[in-house]
């Protein structure tokens, strides 16, 4: 039997999720479920609605219609609309993580690397300075940032280092659910490979659920278990990642897969 007994209950469920910008459709009637320990990739081109979907799921944006439910640590499924603003903010600081494409939006640039990581620990109630610092040091090590950079602020870091710091900041509280928006976008290919390897192993160690938005099918293939393909705000195809990419059924998915340049 699988030791993790909560694995068969979804962590997050979206039903009929729709967001309109005036009369323009941001995302339309999206249904999804994500389970503990699985990585769900949302792929599509610019304007497909994938980033709108991520903003809705993370409650940064209110839906025009539809609902999102989240299973709390008590095992009870609740409608996120019923959470207070303070409860939602607490979720984002503790049980959830959000890794953004641009690390400057996900980090506090004038705070030291150690402070960026330690801040999230304080949000979950940790108060002992020595413990916080040693755990921050440990996490910097896990994302391959040298311990002697702990007091430097991220303005002195390269793009790849900043992204790794953002990952440490998000994962240090052992979140149950992590949103990622193009986490490898804008990075050199060699840096990307390192980051993908890191994300994969950290996420599998933590058993977190991840919803990752990317336009890069190779990233989706390497990281995700399941995939959703979006176009014009709607999900046009979803399923096992390797099945959708190796045997795409929808004309648009066939076009996307056929358009990837082979190295």
């Amino acid at each position, binding site marked *: 039997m699988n*030791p993790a007994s909560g694995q068969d209950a979804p962590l997050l469920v979206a039903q009929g999720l729709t967001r309109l910008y005036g009369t323009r459709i941001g995302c339309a009637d999206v249904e999804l479920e994500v*389970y503990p320990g*699985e990585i769900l990739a949302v792929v599509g081109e610019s304007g497909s609605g994938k980033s709108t979907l991520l903003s809705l799921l993370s409650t940064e944006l209110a839906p025009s219609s539809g609902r999102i439910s989240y299973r709390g640590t008590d095992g009870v499924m609740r409608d996120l609309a019923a959470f207070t603003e303070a409860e939602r903010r607490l979720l984002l600081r503790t049980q959830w993580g959000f890794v953004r494409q641009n690390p400057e939006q996900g980090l506090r640039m004038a705070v030291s690397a150690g402070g960026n990581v330690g801040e999230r620990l304080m949000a979950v109630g940790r108060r002992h300075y020595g413990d916080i610092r040693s755990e921050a040091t440990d996490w910097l090590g896990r994302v391959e940032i040298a311990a002697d950079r702990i007091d430097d602020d991220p303005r002195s870091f390269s793009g790849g280092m900043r992204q790794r710091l953002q990952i440490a900041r998000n994962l240090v509280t052992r979140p149950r659910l992590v949103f990622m928006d193009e986490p490898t976008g804008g990075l050199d290919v060699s840096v990307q*490979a*390192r980051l*993908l*390897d890191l994300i*994969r192993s950290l996420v599998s160690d933590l058993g977190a659920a991840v919803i990752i938005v990317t336009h890069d099918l190779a990233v989706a293939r*390497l990281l995700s*278990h*399941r995939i959703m393909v979006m176009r014009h705000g709607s999900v046009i195809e979803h*399923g*096992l990642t*390797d*099945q959708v990419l*190796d*045997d795409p*059924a*929808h*004309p648009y998915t*066939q*076009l996307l897969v*056929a358009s990837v340049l082979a190295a």
Partner: protein
Amino acid sequence: MNSLAPLPRAVADAAPEVLGVSGLGKSFVLHLRGGMELPVVSGAAFSVRAGTCVALGGPSGAGKSSILKMVFGNYRIDRGHILIRDGDETVDMATASPRRILRLRRERIGYVSQFLRVIPRLSTLDVVSEPLRLDGVPAPEALRRAQDLLARLNLPERLWDLPPATFSGGEQQRVNIARGFIAPRALLLLDEPTASLDARNSAAVIDLINARKAEGTAMLGIFHDEAVRAAVADAVVDVTRFGDAA
């Protein structure tokens, strides 16, 4: 030599059916080619029992690899059933949810594909030992067994700590075989496991396959090399029978 003779026919016939394929049909619809339909198989039917190896036969393009990919859930199934035994349950790959297929792959099915596709930076030992670690085997034990298997497949020890991306075709193939064989699985799918191997290494793979059969693993494979096929297969299913004309 530790290659084992196939199970006596009577024993093999009594062994439980691990894989049952019936009425299997598939075609690709190429939307970028004006919706052109490319038939792959039609009406395929066969079964594989525990401890036996069934080879898919027929010329290139007959649909052998596609059948293997449908059994693994990598290709969609248009018609028919692929029943895989999972303990007391039977799962139909034609209708199973993605999460159910992932669980089957994790626990029951091993797949040795022709090409190795892994995360770029992982060392060969990590690539090979990963299925065992995911099964919950402690890392030192998983690494030790990966070393044993790589040694058995004659992969030079100096390569073990390197990522396999830069290896030769034959070396990558052996990494792939080691990864597919390291963890116990009820069903193993083998897509030309010896295609780029020399005689000595082919023999090592034949020994591995026969040892695994003796432990009760059911196998479905594609073997172009006649000698390899003769050494491991208990039956050959001619895939051309399942062509569009069927």
